[in-house]
């Protein structure tokens, strides 16, 4: 029994990791009051840029920073439009998703079907030999450990550090934060770029580690699911982790069901993560008090220092 559960858990951790990066990044962005619906587009561009960097350099360690920068670059377009030019955040976010899908498909045309060497794992000698705990904790991909580190860092930053407090204040009441002299727009720029960079890393994980290959539209809605996860988590980092692994598990039920000989049409299984997103959105959102208590008050609203 244990023998069959451990590989499933390992795959679940892998499937949840891109959601962790994207959702934690978006969480920081939304905590500052900015709603960036372009996660899907930023992930796609991060995925293809990371893939190109890796296949050109032959090293994974060029791919991840490249994805990071590509995601941040995409977020910069969004930030310039919404924060400097005061454009509608919903419209700009949709534009970013459509643009990212087009840009990544355009740039990635030449890389469809190109193979990468499979990614290295960090096998800690001895520790990874321990049954059950070994494969679960000590022989995963480095990016999985990095996602745990990111969780700790985001949690510490938002709730234990002074800059994090300021960022949350900006998200709750930009006018008050501005009145006591905090630079609202630059702080929102930082939060938006951070979210974009993390989406880029999420995309890099998909194209370099999870797949590892490039396919047009390969994120398959994970960016949108990550947006749903932030609501599901009611803007709390720890709940993002729970949600991401829950969804990672749902994503791979297909493999699990096939192994167990359950004969549903493959499309039914593929639809599960999307249906699950709808179900959790309904369950969380119906509780208006909880949403009001946890959602950043100024989320999606523009702020102009003169106003």
């Amino acid at each position, binding site marked *: 029994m244990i023998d069959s559960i451990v590989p499933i858990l390992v795959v679940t951790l892998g499937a949840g990791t891109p959601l962790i990066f994207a959702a934690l990044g978006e969480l920081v962005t939304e905590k500052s009051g900015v709603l960036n*619906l372009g996660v899907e*587009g930023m992930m796609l561009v991060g995925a293809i840029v990371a893939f190109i960097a890796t296949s050109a350099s032959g090293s994974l360690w060029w791919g991840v920073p490249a994805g990071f920068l590509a995601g941040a670059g995409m977020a910069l*377009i969004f930030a310039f*439009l919404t924060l400097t*030019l*005061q*454009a*509608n955040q*919903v*419209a*700009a976010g*949709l*534009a*970013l998703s*459509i*643009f*990212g*899908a*087009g*840009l990544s*498909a*355009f740039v990635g*045309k030449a890389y469809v079907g190109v193979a990468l060497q499979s990614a290295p794992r960090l096998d800690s000698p001895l520790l990874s030999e321990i049954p059950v705990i070994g494969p679960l904790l000590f022989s995963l991909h480095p990016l999985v450990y990095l996602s745990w580190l990111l969780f700790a860092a985001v949690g510490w930053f938002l709730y234990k550090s002074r800059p994090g407090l300021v960022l949350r204040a900006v998200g709750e009441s930009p006018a008050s934060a501005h009145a*006591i*002299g*905090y630079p609202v727009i630059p702080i929102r720029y930082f939060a938006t770029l951070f979210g974009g960079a993390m989406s880029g890393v999420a995309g890099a994980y998909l194209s370099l580690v999870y797949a590892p290959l490039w396919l*047009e539209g390969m994120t*398959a*809605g994970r960016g*949108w*699911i990550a*947006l*749903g996860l932030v*609501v599901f988590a009611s803007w709390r980092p720890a709940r993002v982790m729970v949600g991401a692994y829950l969804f990672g598990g749902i994503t791979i039920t297909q493999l699990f069901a096939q192994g167990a000989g359950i004969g549903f*049409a493959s*499309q*039914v299984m*593929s*639809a599960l993560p*999307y*249906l699950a*997103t*709808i179900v959790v*959105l*309904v369950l969380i*959102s*119906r509780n*208006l008090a909880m*949403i009001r208590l946890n959602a950043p008050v100024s989320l999606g609203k523009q702020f102009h220092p003169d106003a």
Partner: protein
Amino acid sequence: MSYASPFIAATFTIMTGFLLFSALGMDPLVAFYTFFLAPINSLNGLAELFLKASPLVLIALGLAAGFRANVWNIGAEGQLTIGAIACSGLALHYYSSESHLLLPMMIVAGALGGIAWAAIPALLRTRFNANEILVSLMLTYVAQLLLSYLVHDPWRDPQGFNFPQSQLFPDAALFPILVEGTRLNASVLMSLAAIAAGWVFINKSFLGYQMRVAGLAEGAARYAGFSAKRTIWIGMLAGGAAAGLAGVGEVAGPLGQLLPTVSPGYGFAAIIVAFVGRLDPVGILLAGLLMSLLYLGGDAAQIGMNLPAAVSGLFQGTLLFFLLGADVFITYRIRVIRGVRTQPQEIAV
């Protein structure tokens, strides 16, 4: 004045295209000709322009009703897919029919399919406060998987050499061709009717006025007693009905059968058409024609210049970026203020 920004945006998009083509080492003038002029240089080209603009305009009109009221239905692609499935069900069931009623029934079925699919996010939003953007988008993926299942399994053509596609529809289930020798068919009449209906709804109906108020000033709408739930329902269902009709137009038009993909992203491109058209029926018509040209140009670039067709998506996104950017200079007067900096102050508790 706000009508200037679509033209500014289109100009900037074309200039970006010039830069892109130059950067790729092509003669920008030749590329420009191949992309924007050659596709519509013939009667057939013009017919294709209208054929592709038709679903874009139709869906954008439906979405605009919601967007005006800040109801964000972005799952039109899924509603289109369900509309196509619903009318294909009829066409395949009455496969040997020659009745003139078949096509009208398919149109109704398609609209109802789109409405049903849009009703889910509307219900979840009004009843449980669930975000309609995410729900309608998730349902798009579900709709596409349902379509994939149908054409791979129960509705697959038994004589189709195992290709995932349905039987070809009978003539009674197809829109008649309007211009001989082209693919331009009567489905474009639905879009023309929708433009008129959209104009009346927005400018002459009390309901349209209520929805506009709801979008511009939510508090005022509530104070006046306009139902916020009704606004959401109408906004979502208008988009769903339009997208469902567009789905009928595709499968009972140029496709003539149910395929694993029934739309090259019309549902998403229509969002851009709605914005670029300023949520106004006439503007949407012009924006739809421009967007259709981008699609045709993308196809031509693929064949003539060996560029991936995705270049269309690239231009679509760019167009919307420039539009949103250009709006700022029209909505606001820009003043440069220098030397105003305040220092954060410690507040004693």
